[in-house]
């Protein structure tokens, strides 16, 4: 069991979820089963985190040949790039099962399947295996939004499903193209990402393949201008689905870019980097402005999440160690802060049957613990020093300035938008006059407080002792950058367009 740690983490939740779907269980039992399974996964996740040496290579590797004639293998492994994404996928899940007690059996089962598939996506080192988990991950989301979502759930479901499937089918074509090119160059079939990174793609179709990959990930992240599914899906989805979508699934989009696009398409990536980082910054500004004008808290957080994904994506496109480390750190930081914020909004909705900002007010007087927790998560989300959000954003902006001063300054100054909508919302919801609705608001009870406490502590810990986390991810980030760009750092940061004609990125 211990040598198959990752397989267990993938298939335990998936199989439990399927068994729950197939057999009649009461919803209480389903919830407790789900909780036990996610806690078990959490412990395995912590074990992996502690046992992870951070040398930069793949650890916990599992590899079995699956379809030999095409070189498809069942390959799993994690390195510094995937470690924190994996942690985000394991640490946050048990909360969902403790806080929301009213959902049905199918809902809990779908959550478990989503978790297993997401862990599979994060751990897969084989492109086909990655693709399979990537698609499977969408199915529980489809059912959760469609079955348990808000009043406009069916259009929202269709929008997110068709959007993401369109992206991933394009990715399928692109990944097949990559493998076929590898076959032509090296005379053997493989879908293993380490081997595929040796590929030397010519021009022509490679650009299209790169764009197909990028569209798939840009939809998932979502990167401007592919973000239009997000507000509807996040708003209509039940809270814990929104939580899964924002805290983990969006991060997998960024992770996919780092893991699969950058090593294979380095030249195309460098060529499009400025454009992509502009898309990141634009998305950040645009969604931030949109968030200010929202009346619904959940929708506001949805836009805020999209805005933050813009800056996280920006870190990838800057192509230097600082920005990449910042992105990897920010992935975990944002997962904790935004994830918790969505859960808080879900709690408020459950207690007061409304999410409208104008209907609320004065909650801080009724529920001081809740307000404190909310404030910490919110401040982490806007990047206050001392919280987890600061470290990641700081590193990303540092890298961005190194990469392109204009983009860096644009990103740095527009972070203020995030502070605007968050603090304004906080003021209207938690302070000001309470009304008859919020008079009744109950503070967090002991079990809820205990559920949230570890994550709140984690947010602070990540802000005060970031080195614990950074030292695990930095070697991998450095290796990734060095492997991809052998030319000096400064040159990468200065030249936005590499000299074409002779391939100077290759060893």
């Amino acid at each position, binding site marked *: 069991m211990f040598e198959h740690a990752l397989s267990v983490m993938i298939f335990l939740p998936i199989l439990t979820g399927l068994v729950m779907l197939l057999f009649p269980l009461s919803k209480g039992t389903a919830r407790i089963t789900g909780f036990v399974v996610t806690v078990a996964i959490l412990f395995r996740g912590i074990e992996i985190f502690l046992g992870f040496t951070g040398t930069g290579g793949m650890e916990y590797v599992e590899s079995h040949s699956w379809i030999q004639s095409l070189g498809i293998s069942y390959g799993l492994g994690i390195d510094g790039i995937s470690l924190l994404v994996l942690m985000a996928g394991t640490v946050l899940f048990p909360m969902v099962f403790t806080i929301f007690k009213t959902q049905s059996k199918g809902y809990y089962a779908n959550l478990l399947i989503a978790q297993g598939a997401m862990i599979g996506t994060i751990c897969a080192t084989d492109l086909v295996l990655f693709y399979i988990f990537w*698609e499977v991950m969408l199915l529980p989301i489809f059912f959760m939004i469609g079955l348990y979502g808000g009043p406009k759930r069916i259009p929202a479901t269709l929008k997110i499903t*068709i959007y993401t499937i369109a992206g991933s089918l394009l990715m399928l074509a692109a990944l097949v193209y990559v493998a076929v090119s590898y076959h032509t160059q090296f005379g053997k079939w493989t879908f293993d990402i380490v081997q595929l990174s040796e590929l030397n793609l010519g021009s022509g179709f490679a650009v299209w393949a790169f764009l197909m990959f990028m569209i798939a990930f840009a939809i998932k992240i979502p990167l401007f201008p592919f973000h239009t599914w997000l507000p509807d899906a996040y708003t209509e989805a039940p809270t814990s689905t929104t939580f899964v979508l924002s805290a983990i699934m969006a991060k997998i989009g960024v992770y996919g870019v780092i893991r699969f696009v950058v090593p294979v398409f380095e030249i195309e990536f460098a060529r499009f980097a400025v454009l992509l980082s502009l898309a990141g910054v634009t998305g950040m500004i645009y969604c931030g402005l949109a968030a200010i004008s929202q009346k619904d808290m959940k929708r506001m957080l949805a836009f805020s999440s999209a805005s933050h994904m813009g800056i996280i994506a920006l870190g990838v496109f800057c192509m230097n160690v600082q920005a990449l480390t910042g992105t990897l750190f920010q992935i975990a930081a944002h997962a904790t802060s935004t994830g918790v914020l969505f859960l808080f909004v879900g709690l408020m909705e459950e207690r007061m049957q409304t999410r409208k900002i104008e209907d609320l007010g004065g909650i801080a007087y009724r529920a001081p613990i809740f307000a404190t927790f909310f404030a910490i998560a919110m401040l982490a989300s806007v990047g206050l020093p001392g919280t987890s959000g600061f470290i990641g954003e700081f590193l990303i902006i540092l890298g961005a300035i190194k990469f392109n001063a204009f983009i860096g300054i644009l990103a740095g100054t527009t972070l203020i938008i995030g502070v605007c909508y968050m603090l304004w919302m906080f003021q209207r919801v938690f302070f000001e006059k309470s009304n008859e609705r919020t008079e009744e608001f109950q503070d967090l009870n002991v079990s809820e407080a205990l559920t949230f406490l570890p994550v709140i502590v984690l947010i602070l810990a990540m802000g005060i002792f970031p080195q614990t986390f950074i030292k695990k991810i930095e070697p991998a980030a450095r290796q990734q950058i060095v492997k991809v760009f052998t030319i000096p750092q400064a040159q990468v940061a200065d030249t936005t367009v590499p000299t074409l004609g002779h391939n100077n990125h290759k060893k």
Partner: protein
Amino acid sequence: MHDFISLLPLIIIGSGAILLMLFSAFEKIQLETASYISMGFFAAAFLAQLLVGCGPETVLFDKIFNGMLVSSNFTMIAGLIILGCGFFTAMNSHTYFKINLFCTLEFYAIMLFGACGMLLLTLSQELITAFISLEIMSLSIYILVGYDRSNVTSTEAILKYLMLGAFAGAFFTMGTALIYGGTQSTKFAEIGSFVAGHSGTNPLVLGGVFFIFVAFLFKAAAFPFHAWVIDVYDGAAAPVTGFMATALKTAVFTIFANFLAINGALHKDWITFLFYIAVFTMFGGNLIAIGQNSIKRMLAASGIVHSGYLLIALVAISTDNFTGTVVGYYLAAYAVGTLGIFSALSYLAGEGEKRATFDDFRGLANVRPYSAAAITVFLLSMAGIPPTAGFMAKFYVITSAFTAGHMTLAVLGIVSSILSMWYYLRLIIHMYFHEAEECFETGGSPLAAAATFILVFCVFAIGLYPIVI
């Protein structure tokens, strides 16, 4: 002796057909018994085909048949698919005809004859044999389509199918005649070597091959000969439609691939033609499917789209080292998915197929969660979502297209499958996200339901262990 064993499945099915035909003279034999007998014959032939195993390409009874029949791995796979489809169709019919009472014993005999024709078609490597088997198959299917003589749509369906099918048969004969005039042979191998040996276009061969392609494209429901499919699939009884959609398509694509693959020169000459046919078939099919409200009509249109994907595989087949695995695998994956839905329809549609449209299946998941889940699996497989067989099949087709250098075709195939998501998802949404308005009572026997769940298993088994490739 080996030749005889290779031919054994065909012999078993043929004798089964004759036996059942004789039995139908007796009044005492029940309809159920007949379906069990036909299931038995299909199962026996399936096992025989499996045990014969694969081997290298063999000419069967070289002296007696003069090289008309050739068996290979590819024909074995096709045979297995056809026989499997026959078996499950017999199971579906057992249930279906307990609810809808217009069946007689001859139904099963004719189905066996149809399967017989299909098996022969997969083996044939010669135009006249192909024509004979094509007609055996088509005549049986005509009768099966119009079996319910009191039903107007069924009568309409058989009229359309018979008229157009007869034209296709005539085209085929015409093509054969022209090719024989041009090459002095009707054998695929000799036609191939003639085309390879003579540079420049021979008008007789050109015309002949064109006519034969027309016939194949008609039978395979490819653009621009796809219009009949919708009405014919809609008019036939659900098990028959399932049989047509899967087994018949398998047989036709097998001979089509064999005919194309026999010679690189022929394949090369027609590749542009096939390219456009494939593209128009996919997109035409999608446009038709998006507008449909009836499930059977939607499935018919989606069958057109799948023909388009199979045509991609045909464009991309390598003629030097033809194994047909991609085509075979795609056919298998398509067959389990499609047949599965028709199995589910066989017991869910009710008396006189009263539940036919998307709206009729609203809320199925609340009342019959397992059936709804099974249909969802089939739809996802047809849409090509992993980890189902449909995904692997699509993956292989795309891979083969890229390997053969047809990037545009591969990308267009992907775009087409994005379009097709809409109508597959639509049925899932109707089943899951709406409240049930009725109780979905079903009658008949549990055999069709059993077939459905076996096929669900097959979808995953074929998807996760693609042994064929």
